[in-house]
């Protein structure tokens, strides 16, 4: 029920900014509003007993930030670390409280201003990706950019559940 509303919203604000990045061969976008910055990969401390998608934690200027392997989260093979691997720092709201997450990405492209018209609603299938993760799909010349719904993809409650699941 969310998706149509979203498209409507997108339409209303005719232009919206996204940060585009790629995981494997796919290109994704995430609303700029939720991204804080992009940093190079490094200094990750693994957290014991964590599921695969929780790569670990990093010390981001004195702030301990959990890092999530988006690929795993999206049901793809885990990202292998390369020179260009980087971490996208995103800020999420949870129960009125803000918290920070890091996302592993193979590489980051740019900040894109996407015209609402260029955004199609998420296809019911085909994106081999949970539909509710998708905000929409933007056409960029030849290629498509999957615009992720961070709130869903990185829903703290869900993540926490997954973690819980790990324990028992």
């Amino acid at each position, binding site marked *: 029920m969310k998706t149509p509303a979203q498209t409507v919203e997108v339409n209303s604000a005719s232009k919206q900014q996204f940060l585009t990045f790629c995981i494997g061969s796919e290109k994704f976008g995430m609303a700029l509003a939720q991204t804080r910055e992009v940093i190079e990969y490094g*200094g990750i*401390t*693994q*957290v*014991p*007993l*964590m599921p695969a998608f*929780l790569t670990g*934690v*990093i*010390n981001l*200027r*004195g*702030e*301990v*930030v*959990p890092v*999530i392997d988006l690929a795993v989260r999206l049901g793809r093979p885990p990202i292998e670390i390369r020179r260009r691997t980087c971490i996208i720092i995103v800020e999420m709201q*949870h129960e009125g409280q803000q*918290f*920070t*997450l890091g996302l592993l990405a193979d590489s980051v492209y740019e900040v894109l201003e996407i015209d609402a018209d260029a955004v199609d609603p998420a296809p019911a299938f085909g994106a081999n990706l949970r539909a509710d993760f998708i905000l929409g799909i933007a056409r960029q010349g030849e290629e498509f950019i999957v615009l992720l719904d961070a709130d869903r993809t990185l829903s*703290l409650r869900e*993540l*926490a*559940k997954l*973690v*819980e699941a790990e*324990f028992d």
Partner: protein
Amino acid sequence: MDIPIETFVTESRELLALMEAGLLKLEAGLDSASSEYQEVVNEIFRAAHTIKGSAGLFGLDAVVAFTHTVENLMDCVREGSVGISAELIGLLLQCSDHMAALVDAYIQTGSAPETLVKNGEQLLMSLTPWLPRAAEAASPQAVEEVSESGCWHISLRLGRDTLRNGMDPLAILRYLAGLGELRYCEVIDDDLPLEDFDPENFYLGFVVGLAGPLKKSDIEDAFVFVRDEAEISIVPPQETREQLLRLIQSQQGKSRLGEMLVCSGAITQRELEAALHQQKDPETLKKPLGEILVANKSTSEQLVDAALARQRQKNSARMIRVDAERLDSLINLIGELVINRQRVDLLTSGYVDQDLQEAVASLAGLTEQVRDAALNLRMVAIGETFHRFKRIVRDTAQELGKDIELVLQGEDTELDRSMVEKLTDPLTHIVRNAIDHGIESRERRAESGKPLRGTIKLSAYHDAGNVVIEIQDDGGGINTERVRERAIEKGLLEAGVEYSEHQIHQLIFHPGFSTAEKITNMSGRGVGMDVVKRNVEDLQGVVDIKSHRGQGTLITVRLPLTLAIIDGFHVNSAGTHFIVPQATVVECLDFNSVRRLEGGSSIQLRGELVPYVHLQELLELSGQVNQQKKLVVVQFGDERAAVVVDELYGELQTVVKPLSPVFGTLKGIGGCSLLGNGEIAFILDVPQLIALATADEVHRTANSALMARRHAPSDHLH
């Protein structure tokens, strides 16, 4: 607003707080003969006096006028011409409030509004019965003057070479005689040798009684040329001592013992330096300055104590409100600093430049200090907060005509300033509720055969990465039935369903839920407990309530050590850093050297069986394994367990960072922390760990029993 008045304001606030505390102490009932009583009374008096004085400086006439009376009154109390009574105390408390109000008024408006002044006058009126007829009784100025009677007692042992150095001791004595009246002079010839007496050595000593309006430093000047090898002790006359006492106790500004003593003239700068110097040398090291001074006969114990007392007042009274965010950012910056410092270390380690290395080293030292300082900045003892409740309890109790004693425990439990602030309101609610609903009326108590005086106990303690605050009353406890009914009325519970007492009690925290019939001004509106709950949860804490009908209620607020600084014990297992809360560490052992139970996963520790867990296995850590395993024996409550790790790094103070909620409840790990080098360490949640250990133990023993049957010896050696 310019700085001096700023300081005046903060100071007067402190002083008022002091006064209030003092009054409450008095109310608690002190034997008017006891020194403590005197102490307290003096305290209050001095507070008033100082406020008056400094107010005068800023021309806050109203304050001066008002305070003057109060001061006089206190003076009388001090002399004992006026006895303390509950009523008087009540009034005085109001007075202190009024003074605060006045001060604030001045700060805002720069003048005292009529209404306030009126109130003040009324207050003063109500004070009159106690006031002595001659309002100008002992003017505080009297204190400052030095009484003539009594004399300084100077004992003087000059160095052997005094004469050779061309000093004539008589000259010194003459100088003294010039200063004041030489009451007595005793020549001490004990050291005069009979044999091989060298007439050019000086063996004599003098004990001189010198009377006159003198300052110690004046006297000391007499010895300016000989002091280096002379032993000189200057004991002030009785009066001067008392006067010094007062001076010290009414010390302003100075917060360091030495400074206080010096500028009050109890000791001289030189004595202070000498003492400080002594403090540096190894065997007197760590000896408090006061002791040394007393040992050197520089001053009397009494004075030092007074100064210390004063110092304590100050330090506890001194609080500057700083936005926690600023502190946070500071801490973060310092974290960065530390990390960068580490990087610098790495970079410079290549170079063999001596100076560079030294510079880096000192930088390291400084950074550490800065970090610790910053971290400490944020920590504060909960005592301050607790003390507020004295007043609240008192007022509320009086209002409700209940007799209630507030017992405080673990006042020096440190927790994060920001939390302290956020904690005040909920605690207030809880306490009020306790007084209002918890503690029964005298009659009721009498009936139920309890002591008439109800008790509310506030206690705080650290509990493995948590700060626990308990509010316990010996009141009637929660009427579970009534709550049940109410709940059903409000449709919070379905009738006819069986609920555990605990579940029911939790309803207390439900918004808009109150069992009180009559709505008092402070409770029963149903606001409160839910607010409490929310506030606590904002702090990522949990609030829990336990109650026994007729026996009282215990409300436990358990807060994570968010941003709290704990003393941790730094260990490493399979390359991952961990921190065991120092409080829980019992001892460390070499894993291979302790006796382990065949097959099972327990060690024998002085006859006691202690289960152990391999942290690496428990947390499924992948990483190189050290053969030289170590054991950290931890204790929580009376539970014991041993944790097997690879490396012991030792103690360190760490800032606890909350784990992102993403991790949910991560078993065995209470939080994480940044190490100096920027790496992240996990703080072990000892209670959970122990639980796991014991559980693990059980299921392991089962396995290992099997394994043992398969290949016996190798098993217990992993």
